[in-house]
Protein backbone atom coordinates (compact mmCIF):
# COMPACT_ATOMS: atom_id res chain seq x y z
CA UNK A 1 0.00 0.00 0.00
CA UNK A 2 1.14 3.52 -0.76
CA UNK A 3 2.57 5.33 2.27
CA UNK A 4 1.24 8.82 2.94
CA UNK A 5 3.45 9.48 5.92
CA UNK A 6 6.72 7.87 6.81
CA UNK A 7 8.19 9.27 9.98
CA UNK A 8 11.28 7.82 11.62
CA UNK A 9 13.40 8.79 14.62
CA UNK A 10 11.75 12.15 15.23
CA UNK A 11 13.38 14.11 18.04
CA UNK A 12 12.53 17.51 19.43
CA UNK A 13 13.63 19.45 22.49
CA UNK A 14 12.48 22.81 23.79
CA UNK A 15 15.04 24.65 25.89
CA UNK A 16 16.98 21.49 26.65
CA UNK A 17 13.89 19.48 27.60
CA UNK A 18 13.27 16.52 25.32
CA UNK A 19 9.66 16.60 24.20
CA UNK A 20 9.93 13.90 21.52
CA UNK A 21 12.48 11.18 22.07
CA UNK A 22 12.22 8.85 19.12
CA UNK A 23 8.93 8.90 17.28
CA UNK A 24 8.35 6.71 14.25
CA UNK A 25 5.21 5.66 12.44
CA UNK A 26 3.89 5.12 8.96
CA UNK A 27 0.45 5.90 7.69
CA UNK A 28 -0.85 4.27 4.51
CA UNK A 29 -2.96 6.32 2.15
CA UNK A 30 -6.66 6.26 2.98
CA UNK A 31 -6.10 5.23 6.57
CA UNK A 32 -7.00 6.97 9.80
CA UNK A 33 -4.50 7.08 12.63
CA UNK A 34 -5.46 8.19 16.10
CA UNK A 35 -2.93 9.35 18.64
CA UNK A 36 -3.90 9.28 22.28
CA UNK A 37 -1.99 10.07 25.43
CA UNK A 38 -1.87 12.40 28.44
CA UNK A 39 -1.15 16.12 28.19
CA UNK A 40 2.50 16.85 27.55
CA UNK A 41 3.11 13.49 25.92
CA UNK A 42 4.17 15.17 22.66
CA UNK A 43 1.11 14.38 20.52
CA UNK A 44 0.51 17.96 19.45
CA UNK A 45 4.19 18.66 18.91
CA UNK A 46 4.35 15.67 16.56
CA UNK A 47 1.47 17.08 14.48
CA UNK A 48 2.98 20.55 14.57
CA UNK A 49 6.26 19.27 13.20
CA UNK A 50 4.58 17.35 10.38
CA UNK A 51 2.50 20.42 9.48
CA UNK A 52 5.62 22.63 9.67
CA UNK A 53 4.57 24.82 12.57
CA UNK A 54 7.67 23.60 14.41
CA UNK A 55 11.05 22.40 13.19
CA UNK A 56 12.32 18.91 13.96
CA UNK A 57 15.70 18.51 15.68
CA UNK A 58 16.38 15.11 14.19
CA UNK A 59 14.63 12.41 12.16
CA UNK A 60 13.25 11.66 8.72
CA UNK A 61 9.87 12.55 7.31
CA UNK A 62 8.34 11.71 3.98
CA UNK A 63 4.91 12.98 3.02
CA UNK A 64 3.31 11.49 -0.09
CA UNK A 65 6.72 10.40 -1.30
CA UNK A 66 8.38 13.79 -0.78
CA UNK A 67 11.09 14.22 1.82
CA UNK A 68 10.47 17.16 4.14
CA UNK A 69 13.53 16.53 6.29
CA UNK A 70 16.07 13.79 6.74
CA UNK A 71 18.61 13.00 9.39
CA UNK A 72 22.20 13.98 8.58
CA UNK A 73 24.77 13.48 11.35
CA UNK A 74 22.08 13.46 14.01
CA UNK A 75 20.37 16.60 12.75
CA UNK A 76 17.22 17.11 10.73
CA UNK A 77 18.08 18.74 7.40
CA UNK A 78 15.12 20.31 5.63
CA UNK A 79 14.51 20.49 1.89
CA UNK A 80 14.51 23.92 0.25
CA UNK A 81 11.82 26.48 1.14
CA UNK A 82 9.89 26.06 -2.10
CA UNK A 83 9.70 22.28 -1.62
CA UNK A 84 8.70 22.87 2.01
CA UNK A 85 5.84 25.02 0.77
CA UNK A 86 4.77 22.43 -1.79
CA UNK A 87 4.79 19.69 0.84
CA UNK A 88 2.91 21.99 3.21
CA UNK A 89 0.13 22.23 0.65
CA UNK A 90 -0.35 18.46 0.87
CA UNK A 91 -1.13 18.70 4.58
CA UNK A 92 -4.04 20.37 6.32
CA UNK A 93 -4.46 21.05 10.03
CA UNK A 94 -7.58 21.56 12.11
CA UNK A 95 -6.88 23.32 15.41
CA UNK A 96 -8.39 22.85 18.83
CA UNK A 97 -9.19 26.58 18.95
CA UNK A 98 -10.48 26.77 15.31
CA UNK A 99 -8.39 29.86 14.51
CA UNK A 100 -10.87 31.19 11.98
CA UNK A 101 -10.20 34.66 10.63
CA UNK A 102 -12.68 36.84 12.54
CA UNK A 103 -12.68 39.69 10.01
CA UNK A 104 -13.69 37.41 7.12
CA UNK A 105 -17.14 35.99 6.51
CA UNK A 106 -17.53 32.23 6.72
CA UNK A 107 -17.39 32.03 2.93
CA UNK A 108 -14.25 34.14 2.68
CA UNK A 109 -12.55 32.11 5.39
CA UNK A 110 -12.83 29.18 2.99
CA UNK A 111 -12.15 30.98 -0.30
CA UNK A 112 -9.21 33.20 0.74
CA UNK A 113 -6.44 30.59 0.57
CA UNK A 114 -7.94 28.99 -2.55
CA UNK A 115 -7.62 32.34 -4.31
CA UNK A 116 -4.36 33.60 -2.78
CA UNK A 117 -2.45 30.34 -2.61
CA UNK A 118 -3.90 28.06 -5.29
CA UNK A 119 -4.85 30.97 -7.60
CA UNK A 120 -8.34 29.66 -8.18
CA UNK A 121 -10.87 32.04 -9.63
CA UNK A 122 -13.40 33.62 -7.30
CA UNK A 123 -16.24 31.60 -8.86
CA UNK A 124 -14.38 28.34 -8.55
CA UNK A 125 -13.35 29.07 -4.96
CA UNK A 126 -16.87 30.02 -3.94
CA UNK A 127 -18.37 27.00 -5.63
CA UNK A 128 -15.96 24.75 -3.77
CA UNK A 129 -16.63 26.56 -0.48
CA UNK A 130 -20.40 26.26 -0.87
CA UNK A 131 -20.13 22.57 -1.69
CA UNK A 132 -18.09 22.00 1.46
CA UNK A 133 -20.40 24.12 3.62
CA UNK A 134 -23.34 22.13 2.29
CA UNK A 135 -21.56 18.94 3.15
CA UNK A 136 -20.93 20.30 6.66
CA UNK A 137 -24.61 21.19 6.91
CA UNK A 138 -24.03 24.92 7.39
CA UNK A 139 -24.51 26.35 3.89
CA UNK A 140 -26.90 28.96 5.29
CA UNK A 141 -24.09 30.44 7.42
CA UNK A 142 -21.93 31.43 4.44
CA UNK A 143 -22.54 35.16 4.78
CA UNK A 144 -22.17 35.27 8.55
CA UNK A 145 -19.08 36.02 10.60
CA UNK A 146 -17.33 33.51 12.86
CA UNK A 147 -18.46 35.21 16.10
CA UNK A 148 -22.08 34.58 15.10
CA UNK A 149 -21.54 30.81 15.01
CA UNK A 150 -21.53 28.16 17.73
CA UNK A 151 -18.24 26.44 18.51
CA UNK A 152 -19.32 23.34 16.62
CA UNK A 153 -20.24 25.40 13.57
CA UNK A 154 -16.94 27.28 13.75
CA UNK A 155 -15.04 24.02 13.86
CA UNK A 156 -16.96 22.76 10.84
CA UNK A 157 -16.00 25.93 8.98
CA UNK A 158 -12.37 25.36 9.89
CA UNK A 159 -12.57 21.78 8.60
CA UNK A 160 -14.09 23.09 5.37
CA UNK A 161 -11.32 25.70 5.18
CA UNK A 162 -8.69 22.96 5.40
CA UNK A 163 -10.48 20.66 2.93
CA UNK A 164 -10.90 23.44 0.38
CA UNK A 165 -7.20 23.22 -0.47
CA UNK A 166 -7.55 19.50 -1.30
CA UNK A 167 -4.91 18.27 1.14
CA UNK A 168 -3.72 14.70 0.75
CA UNK A 169 -3.64 14.21 4.50
CA UNK A 170 -5.58 16.04 7.17
CA UNK A 171 -4.47 16.46 10.80
CA UNK A 172 -6.76 17.13 13.73
CA UNK A 173 -5.22 18.52 16.91
CA UNK A 174 -7.79 17.79 19.64
CA UNK A 175 -10.60 19.12 17.44
CA UNK A 176 -13.31 18.72 20.08
CA UNK A 177 -11.48 19.73 23.26
CA UNK A 178 -13.00 23.22 23.22
CA UNK A 179 -16.53 21.91 22.66
CA UNK A 180 -19.31 20.61 24.89
CA UNK A 181 -20.50 16.99 24.42
CA UNK A 182 -23.31 17.90 22.07
CA UNK A 183 -21.11 19.97 19.77
CA UNK A 184 -18.40 17.33 20.05
CA UNK A 185 -20.81 14.85 18.46
CA UNK A 186 -21.36 17.19 15.50
CA UNK A 187 -17.64 17.29 14.80
CA UNK A 188 -17.07 13.58 15.33
CA UNK A 189 -19.82 12.90 12.82
CA UNK A 190 -18.05 15.03 10.23
CA UNK A 191 -14.71 13.31 10.81
CA UNK A 192 -16.40 9.91 10.62
CA UNK A 193 -17.90 10.83 7.24
CA UNK A 194 -14.47 11.87 6.00
CA UNK A 195 -13.08 8.54 7.17
CA UNK A 196 -15.77 6.74 5.21
CA UNK A 197 -14.69 8.66 2.12
CA UNK A 198 -11.16 7.31 2.68
CA UNK A 199 -9.63 10.65 3.56
CA UNK A 200 -6.18 10.07 5.05
CA UNK A 201 -6.24 11.51 8.56
CA UNK A 202 -4.33 11.73 11.81
CA UNK A 203 -6.47 12.55 14.81
CA UNK A 204 -5.14 13.55 18.22
CA UNK A 205 -8.06 13.12 20.56
CA UNK A 206 -9.29 12.29 24.04
CA UNK A 207 -12.50 10.74 22.62
CA UNK A 208 -11.61 7.10 23.18
CA UNK A 209 -14.75 5.45 21.80
CA UNK A 210 -14.57 7.63 18.74
CA UNK A 211 -10.87 6.91 18.17
CA UNK A 212 -11.52 3.19 18.49
CA UNK A 213 -14.43 3.32 16.08
CA UNK A 214 -12.88 5.30 13.23
CA UNK A 215 -9.19 4.45 13.23
CA UNK A 216 -7.27 1.84 11.32
CA UNK A 217 -4.34 2.22 13.67
CA UNK A 218 -3.86 3.75 17.12
CA UNK A 219 -0.81 5.05 18.95
CA UNK A 220 -0.46 5.67 22.66
CA UNK A 221 2.18 8.26 23.53
CA UNK A 222 3.60 9.17 26.91
CA UNK A 223 6.50 11.48 27.82
CA UNK A 224 7.74 11.80 24.27
CA UNK A 225 7.77 8.14 23.31
CA UNK A 226 5.33 5.77 21.66
CA UNK A 227 4.51 3.37 24.47
CA UNK A 228 2.29 1.12 22.44
CA UNK A 229 0.57 0.94 19.08
CA UNK A 230 -1.69 -1.43 17.30
CA UNK A 231 -5.05 -1.87 15.73
CA UNK A 232 -7.56 0.04 17.80
CA UNK A 233 -9.55 -2.94 19.05
CA UNK A 234 -6.40 -4.42 20.52
CA UNK A 235 -4.94 -1.16 21.85
CA UNK A 236 -8.16 -0.04 23.49
CA UNK A 237 -9.60 -3.48 24.31
CA UNK A 238 -6.50 -5.31 25.41
CA UNK A 239 -3.58 -2.97 26.05
CA UNK A 240 -0.30 -4.76 26.76
CA UNK A 241 1.52 -2.01 28.61
CA UNK A 242 0.65 -0.98 32.17
CA UNK A 243 0.83 2.74 31.36
CA UNK A 244 -1.59 2.31 28.46
CA UNK A 245 -4.00 0.35 30.67
CA UNK A 246 -3.91 3.09 33.33
CA UNK A 247 -4.55 5.82 30.79
CA UNK A 248 -7.44 4.06 29.06
CA UNK A 249 -8.95 3.00 32.40
CA UNK A 250 -8.97 6.65 33.50
CA UNK A 251 -11.66 7.31 30.86
CA UNK A 252 -13.94 4.53 32.03
CA UNK A 253 -15.75 5.85 35.06
Amino acid at each position, binding site marked *: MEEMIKLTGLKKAFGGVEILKNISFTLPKGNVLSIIGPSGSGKSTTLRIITQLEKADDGNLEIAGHTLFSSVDGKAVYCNPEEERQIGLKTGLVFQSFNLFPHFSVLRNITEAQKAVLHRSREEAEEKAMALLTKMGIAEKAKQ*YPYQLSGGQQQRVSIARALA*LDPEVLFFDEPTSALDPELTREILKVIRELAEEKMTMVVVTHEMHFARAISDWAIFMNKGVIVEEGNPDRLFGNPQEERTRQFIASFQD
Partner: protein
Amino acid sequence: MQGLISQMLEGTVTSLEIFFLTLIFSLPLGFVVAKGRMTRIAPIRWIVDLYIQVMRGTPLILQLIFVYFAPFYIFGASYDRFTACIIAFVINYSAYFSEIYRSGLQSIDRGQYEASKVLGFTKAYTFFHIILPQVIKRILPALGNEVITLVKDTALAQTIGVAELFRVAQTASSREFSTLPIFIAGVFYFIMNYIVSRLFVVMEKKLNYYR
Protein backbone atom coordinates in the same frame (compact mmCIF):
# COMPACT_ATOMS: atom_id res chain seq x y z
CA MET B 1 -11.97 91.35 11.68
CA GLN B 2 -12.15 89.84 8.21
CA GLY B 3 -8.40 90.37 7.82
CA LEU B 4 -7.84 88.60 11.11
CA ILE B 5 -9.96 85.58 10.14
CA SER B 6 -8.23 85.20 6.77
CA GLN B 7 -4.83 85.44 8.49
CA MET B 8 -5.92 82.78 10.91
CA LEU B 9 -7.18 80.58 8.10
CA GLU B 10 -3.75 80.83 6.54
CA GLY B 11 -2.23 79.77 9.85
CA THR B 12 -4.69 76.91 9.95
CA VAL B 13 -3.52 75.73 6.54
CA THR B 14 0.04 75.58 7.89
CA SER B 15 -1.18 73.70 10.97
CA LEU B 16 -3.01 71.26 8.73
CA GLU B 17 0.10 70.80 6.60
CA ILE B 18 2.08 69.89 9.70
CA PHE B 19 -0.75 67.60 10.77
CA PHE B 20 -1.10 65.69 7.50
CA LEU B 21 2.60 65.48 6.69
CA THR B 22 3.28 64.12 10.16
CA LEU B 23 0.59 61.48 9.76
CA ILE B 24 1.64 60.48 6.24
CA PHE B 25 5.19 59.75 7.41
CA SER B 26 4.79 58.63 11.00
CA LEU B 27 1.86 56.23 10.60
CA PRO B 28 3.86 53.83 8.38
CA LEU B 29 7.19 54.59 10.09
CA GLY B 30 5.64 53.65 13.41
CA PHE B 31 5.20 50.13 12.08
CA VAL B 32 8.86 49.91 11.16
CA VAL B 33 9.78 51.14 14.65
CA ALA B 34 7.39 48.63 16.25
CA LYS B 35 8.96 45.81 14.24
CA GLY B 36 12.39 47.01 15.36
CA ARG B 37 11.22 47.09 18.96
CA MET B 38 9.99 43.48 18.63
CA THR B 39 12.91 42.03 16.68
CA ARG B 40 14.92 39.10 17.99
CA ILE B 41 18.14 40.92 17.03
CA ALA B 42 19.11 42.39 20.40
CA PRO B 43 21.27 45.39 19.32
CA ILE B 44 18.52 46.69 17.02
CA ARG B 45 15.98 46.23 19.80
CA TRP B 46 18.14 48.19 22.28
CA ILE B 47 18.69 51.07 19.88
CA VAL B 48 15.02 51.29 18.98
CA ASP B 49 14.08 51.07 22.63
CA LEU B 50 16.46 53.92 23.50
CA TYR B 51 15.02 56.01 20.68
CA ILE B 52 11.47 55.44 21.94
CA GLN B 53 12.52 56.27 25.51
CA VAL B 54 14.16 59.53 24.42
CA MET B 55 11.17 60.56 22.27
CA ARG B 56 8.71 59.88 25.06
CA GLY B 57 10.94 61.05 27.87
CA THR B 58 11.75 64.56 26.61
CA PRO B 59 9.41 67.43 25.69
CA LEU B 60 8.41 67.73 22.04
CA ILE B 61 9.17 71.45 22.26
CA LEU B 62 12.77 70.61 23.15
CA GLN B 63 12.97 68.09 20.28
CA LEU B 64 11.79 70.77 17.85
CA ILE B 65 14.50 73.15 19.02
CA PHE B 66 17.11 70.39 18.87
CA VAL B 67 16.19 69.26 15.36
CA TYR B 68 16.20 72.81 14.07
CA PHE B 69 19.36 74.08 15.74
CA ALA B 70 21.55 70.99 16.07
CA PRO B 71 22.66 70.95 12.39
CA PHE B 72 23.72 74.57 12.76
CA TYR B 73 25.91 73.92 15.80
CA ILE B 74 27.31 70.66 14.46
CA PHE B 75 27.79 71.43 10.76
CA GLY B 76 27.37 75.18 10.71
CA ALA B 77 24.51 74.72 8.25
CA SER B 78 20.97 75.88 8.83
CA TYR B 79 17.88 74.75 6.96
CA ASP B 80 14.24 75.41 6.41
CA ARG B 81 12.30 75.65 9.67
CA PHE B 82 9.19 74.00 8.25
CA THR B 83 11.24 70.96 7.21
CA ALA B 84 12.80 70.83 10.67
CA CYS B 85 9.36 71.00 12.20
CA ILE B 86 8.10 68.06 10.10
CA ILE B 87 11.18 65.97 10.92
CA ALA B 88 10.77 66.60 14.65
CA PHE B 89 7.07 65.76 14.59
CA VAL B 90 7.60 62.63 12.51
CA ILE B 91 10.32 61.14 14.70
CA ASN B 92 8.33 61.97 17.82
CA TYR B 93 5.01 60.61 16.61
CA SER B 94 6.56 57.50 15.05
CA ALA B 95 7.74 56.57 18.54
CA TYR B 96 4.28 56.99 20.04
CA PHE B 97 2.52 55.22 17.16
CA SER B 98 5.00 52.35 17.34
CA GLU B 99 4.02 51.60 20.92
CA ILE B 100 0.35 51.58 19.95
CA TYR B 101 1.10 49.24 17.04
CA ARG B 102 3.15 47.00 19.29
CA SER B 103 0.27 46.65 21.74
CA GLY B 104 -2.01 45.78 18.81
CA LEU B 105 0.38 43.31 17.21
CA GLN B 106 1.01 41.54 20.49
CA SER B 107 -2.71 41.21 21.17
CA ILE B 108 -3.26 39.06 18.07
CA ASP B 109 -3.58 35.39 18.90
CA ARG B 110 -0.72 33.18 17.71
CA GLY B 111 -3.33 30.90 16.17
CA GLN B 112 -3.97 33.51 13.47
CA TYR B 113 -0.35 33.23 12.31
CA GLU B 114 -0.42 29.44 12.58
CA ALA B 115 -3.64 29.08 10.58
CA SER B 116 -2.18 31.40 7.93
CA LYS B 117 1.01 29.37 7.74
CA VAL B 118 -0.83 26.06 7.46
CA LEU B 119 -3.02 27.47 4.69
CA GLY B 120 0.07 28.48 2.74
CA PHE B 121 -0.16 32.28 2.93
CA THR B 122 3.18 34.06 2.56
CA LYS B 123 4.43 36.19 5.46
CA ALA B 124 3.61 39.41 3.63
CA TYR B 125 0.12 38.19 2.73
CA THR B 126 -0.48 37.11 6.31
CA PHE B 127 0.59 40.50 7.62
CA PHE B 128 -1.41 42.67 5.22
CA HIS B 129 -4.57 40.58 4.89
CA ILE B 130 -4.89 38.70 8.15
CA ILE B 131 -3.01 40.53 10.91
CA LEU B 132 -3.05 44.22 9.96
CA PRO B 133 -6.84 44.57 9.57
CA GLN B 134 -7.35 43.06 13.02
CA VAL B 135 -4.64 45.23 14.54
CA ILE B 136 -6.20 48.39 13.10
CA LYS B 137 -9.57 47.57 14.59
CA ARG B 138 -8.05 47.05 18.02
CA ILE B 139 -5.82 50.13 18.11
CA LEU B 140 -8.28 52.61 16.61
CA PRO B 141 -9.34 54.15 19.97
CA ALA B 142 -5.73 54.61 21.11
CA LEU B 143 -4.79 55.95 17.68
CA GLY B 144 -7.66 58.44 17.84
CA ASN B 145 -6.32 59.82 21.11
CA GLU B 146 -2.88 60.31 19.64
CA VAL B 147 -4.15 61.96 16.46
CA ILE B 148 -6.21 64.42 18.50
CA THR B 149 -3.12 65.26 20.53
CA LEU B 150 -1.25 65.86 17.29
CA VAL B 151 -3.76 68.51 16.20
CA LYS B 152 -3.04 70.43 19.41
CA ASP B 153 0.70 69.74 19.33
CA THR B 154 1.04 71.51 15.98
CA ALA B 155 0.87 74.71 18.04
CA LEU B 156 4.38 73.92 19.28
CA ALA B 157 5.80 74.52 15.79
CA GLN B 158 5.84 78.24 16.57
CA THR B 159 8.78 77.59 18.92
CA ILE B 160 11.05 77.46 15.89
CA GLY B 161 9.18 80.21 14.09
CA VAL B 162 6.71 78.33 11.91
CA ALA B 163 3.72 80.56 11.33
CA GLU B 164 0.97 78.12 12.23
CA LEU B 165 -2.44 78.94 13.66
CA PHE B 166 -1.44 79.62 17.25
CA ARG B 167 1.45 81.90 16.34
CA VAL B 168 -0.77 83.90 14.03
CA ALA B 169 -3.31 84.21 16.83
CA GLN B 170 -0.68 85.32 19.34
CA THR B 171 0.78 87.89 16.97
CA ALA B 172 -2.68 89.28 16.24
CA SER B 173 -3.43 89.29 19.93
CA SER B 174 -0.46 91.46 20.88
CA ARG B 175 -1.00 93.73 17.86
CA GLU B 176 -4.63 94.40 18.77
CA PHE B 177 -4.30 94.26 22.56
CA SER B 178 -7.02 91.63 22.67
CA THR B 179 -7.23 88.00 23.69
CA LEU B 180 -10.01 87.44 21.17
CA PRO B 181 -7.73 85.93 18.44
CA ILE B 182 -6.51 83.35 20.98
CA PHE B 183 -10.08 82.31 21.70
CA ILE B 184 -10.88 82.15 18.00
CA ALA B 185 -7.85 79.89 17.57
CA GLY B 186 -9.29 77.71 20.34
CA VAL B 187 -12.52 77.38 18.39
CA PHE B 188 -10.52 76.44 15.28
CA TYR B 189 -8.64 73.70 17.13
CA PHE B 190 -11.89 72.45 18.61
CA ILE B 191 -13.53 72.23 15.19
CA MET B 192 -10.56 70.36 13.71
CA ASN B 193 -10.57 67.88 16.55
CA TYR B 194 -14.32 67.50 16.41
CA ILE B 195 -13.92 66.41 12.79
CA VAL B 196 -11.05 64.08 13.70
CA SER B 197 -12.99 62.41 16.49
CA ARG B 198 -16.10 62.01 14.31
CA LEU B 199 -13.93 60.39 11.65
CA PHE B 200 -12.63 57.92 14.20
CA VAL B 201 -16.16 57.13 15.34
CA VAL B 202 -17.10 56.43 11.71
CA MET B 203 -14.07 54.17 11.23
CA GLU B 204 -14.78 52.29 14.45
CA LYS B 205 -18.37 51.76 13.36
CA LYS B 206 -17.20 50.54 9.98
CA LEU B 207 -15.02 47.92 11.61
CA ASN B 208 -17.74 46.92 14.02
CA TYR B 209 -19.06 44.22 11.70
CA TYR B 210 -17.01 41.57 13.48
CA ARG B 211 -15.64 40.83 16.93
